[in-house]
């Protein structure tokens, strides 16, 4: 859930009890005020009545409460002395409403010319049920208006306020340390966002610096290894020429040479990988992949036939794509070599080419490989000690460089597919 809706949600929940409690308080406060003013009015009527009485003695004959809104009844002195005036609520039939409606009554006493009277005043009162109904309706409307205002304000204002944050969030998922992406921070006057921007910029700069340092370390280490490797290999080659060795001694020498060769290949692969990632291959040309694959498979024919594996190129359509030529060769070589090295005897490695894809298929282990690790560095699929474990990682790095999609799947054959982006 978005942060924006989150605050709105909590406000919506919180507002319900808040408005309810407020409604109760408001209702009773208002009712209290109404009673107060009604009672004042009734008392005022009594004073008016007493004032008019000397000039209008017929008032004393007003006994019909419903007609005059007051009634005067003579009472005994004893009753008069014991009587305390009181206000009360009661129901009275209203002709217009054709229903009993609440009325406020005020019962009091008076003495006039030594005669004692009980006087009762009434006045019509608010209809509480109507009041409550109205109140509830208006509160629901208020609640709705409040919520709409909050959501709209949140969406407009908060969106604006959180802009620097959202702009960062939109960029971070696409950030790749190996690519020279810059994170653009938006200027802001909000302290927290300023801090966030500064922290992220520093974090990225530092990480990239470390990453480049590491890349250069790998590159430098590989370079530094080349000369001692060259010296060792060449010394051994000269030694082998100059000395007559027995078969077992030759075997040992061959093994040393082989291992130095492996070391050289591993070193070259590491160097290549860091060079691809450091974007050192900038030259590009239009490559005829059909022709290139035919050339590469020619180089591999002997290896394949030595392993009793057939090699078949199915050029269904022509594929031309702009890449660096050396990298195109490495990419296809690694995929085809991988298929042959891990291929099964007496089966065929098939390379299919369409206008936007190259698919390399080989029979091998009868189980799918873990596609999460197929392209990882130093993940060796077989126990083959001569593979560097970098071939597919290099293929992946090259395909990513050119936005070619390299994927692995298994359906009775191991399938490595390259999907080329359409040229715009």
């Amino acid at each position, binding site marked *: 859930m978005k942060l924006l809706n989150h605050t709105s949600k909590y406000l919506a929940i919180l507002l319900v009890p808040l408005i309810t409690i407020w409604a109760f308080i408001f209702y009773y406060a208002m009712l209290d005020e109404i009673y107060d003013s009604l009672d004042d009015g009734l008392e005022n009527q009594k004073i008016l009545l007493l004032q008019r009485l000397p000039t209008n003695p017929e008032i004393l004959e007003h006994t019909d409460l419903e007609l005059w809104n007051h009634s005067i009844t003579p009472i005994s002195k004893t009753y008069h002395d014991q009587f305390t005036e009181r206000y009360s609520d009661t129901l009275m039939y209203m002709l217009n409403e054709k229903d009993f409606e609440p009325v406020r009554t005020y019962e009091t006493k008076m003495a006039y010319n030594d005669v004692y009277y009980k006087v009762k005043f009434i006045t019509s009162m608010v209809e509480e049920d109507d009041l409550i109904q109205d109140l509830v309706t208006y509160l629901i409307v208020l609640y709705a208006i409040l919520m709409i205002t909050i959501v709209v304000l949140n969406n407009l204002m908060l969106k604006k306020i959180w802009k620097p944050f959202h702009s960062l969030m939109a960029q971070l998922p696409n950030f790749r340390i190996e690519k020279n992406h810059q994170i653009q921070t938006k200027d802001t006057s909000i302290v927290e966002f300023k801090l966030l921007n500064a922290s992220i910029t520093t974090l990225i700069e530092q990480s990239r610096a470390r990453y480049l340092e590491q890349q250069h370390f790998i590159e430098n280490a590989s370079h530094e290894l*080349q000369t001692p490797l*060259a010296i060792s290999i*060449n010394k051994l080659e*000269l030694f082998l020429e100059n000395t007559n060795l027995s078969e077992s001694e030759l075997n040992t020498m061959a093994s040393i040479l082989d291992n130095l060769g492996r070391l050289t290949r591993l070193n070259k692969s590491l160097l290549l990988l860091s060079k691809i990632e450091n974007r050192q291959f900038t*030259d590009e040309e239009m490559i005829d992949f059909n022709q290139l694959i035919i050339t590469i498979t020619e180089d591999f024919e002997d290896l394949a036939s*030595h392993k009793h594996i057939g090699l078949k190129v199915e050029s269904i359509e022509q594929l031309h794509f702009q890449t660096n030529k050396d990298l195109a060769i490495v990419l296809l070589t690694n995929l085809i070599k991988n298929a042959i090295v891990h291929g099964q005897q007496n089966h065929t490695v098939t390379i299919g080419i369409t206008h936007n894809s190259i698919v390399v298929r080989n029979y091998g282990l009868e189980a799918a490989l873990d596609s999460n690790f197929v392209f990882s560095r130093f993940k060796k699929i077989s126990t083959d000690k001569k593979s560097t474990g970098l071939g597919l990682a290099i293929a992946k790095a090259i395909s990513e460089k050119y936005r070619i999609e390299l994927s692995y799947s298994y359906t009775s054959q191991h399938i490595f597919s390259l999907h080329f982006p359409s040229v715009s």
Partner: protein
Amino acid sequence: MKLLIIEDEPEMLENMVQTLERQHYVVETASDYKSALHKIGVYDYDCILLDITLPDGNGLELLKALKSSGKDDGVIIVSAKDSLDDRLEGLNLGADDYLPKPFHMAELHARVKAVLRRRHFEGNQQINIGNVAVAPESREVKVDGNPIVLNRKEYDILMYLITNKKRLVTKSALAEHVWGDHIDQADSFDFIYSQIKNLRKKLEHATITIEAVYGVGYKLEVM
């Protein structure tokens, strides 16, 4: 043939001198920028092997100095820094070839030989070895005057072995030279044996033989 090796790593230099002297070249050396500059200024060489990372200067500057003085010595850049930029710059400055370290001795011989052939218009010349004659231009091979048909790989193997005649050529050197740099990660170089076998069959009337050096490689011998 006179060669100059410019290389600051003493052991590397010693290996190269040793192997090239056995190919009957006259080999001179320089191990820093200054002495190298002096030597190329005073003497002419048929081929210069140039390391571009020198302690007191860049080998590419030497190449520039050489070319600007109008000299036409063959130059092979030898570098531990197999960088595309260096390779391109070197070739643009007029180097004949670029050989990244580490390399096989057999490959060094082949590259030097190729440069010398180009320099001295030997490309058209027929190479005779035993009763075998090879015409590099047309890639034709004759045994006792009778042409034999070799496929591309067989021809490349034969030429490589001839260039390194009587010397050990390791299987990996041969594989990388003939099958390309990218074959190098193949799981075994045993696959080259079938081409050797075919080549031997085609050379059965020749006075040269391809001998296996157990487990290590091959050697071309002249009977």
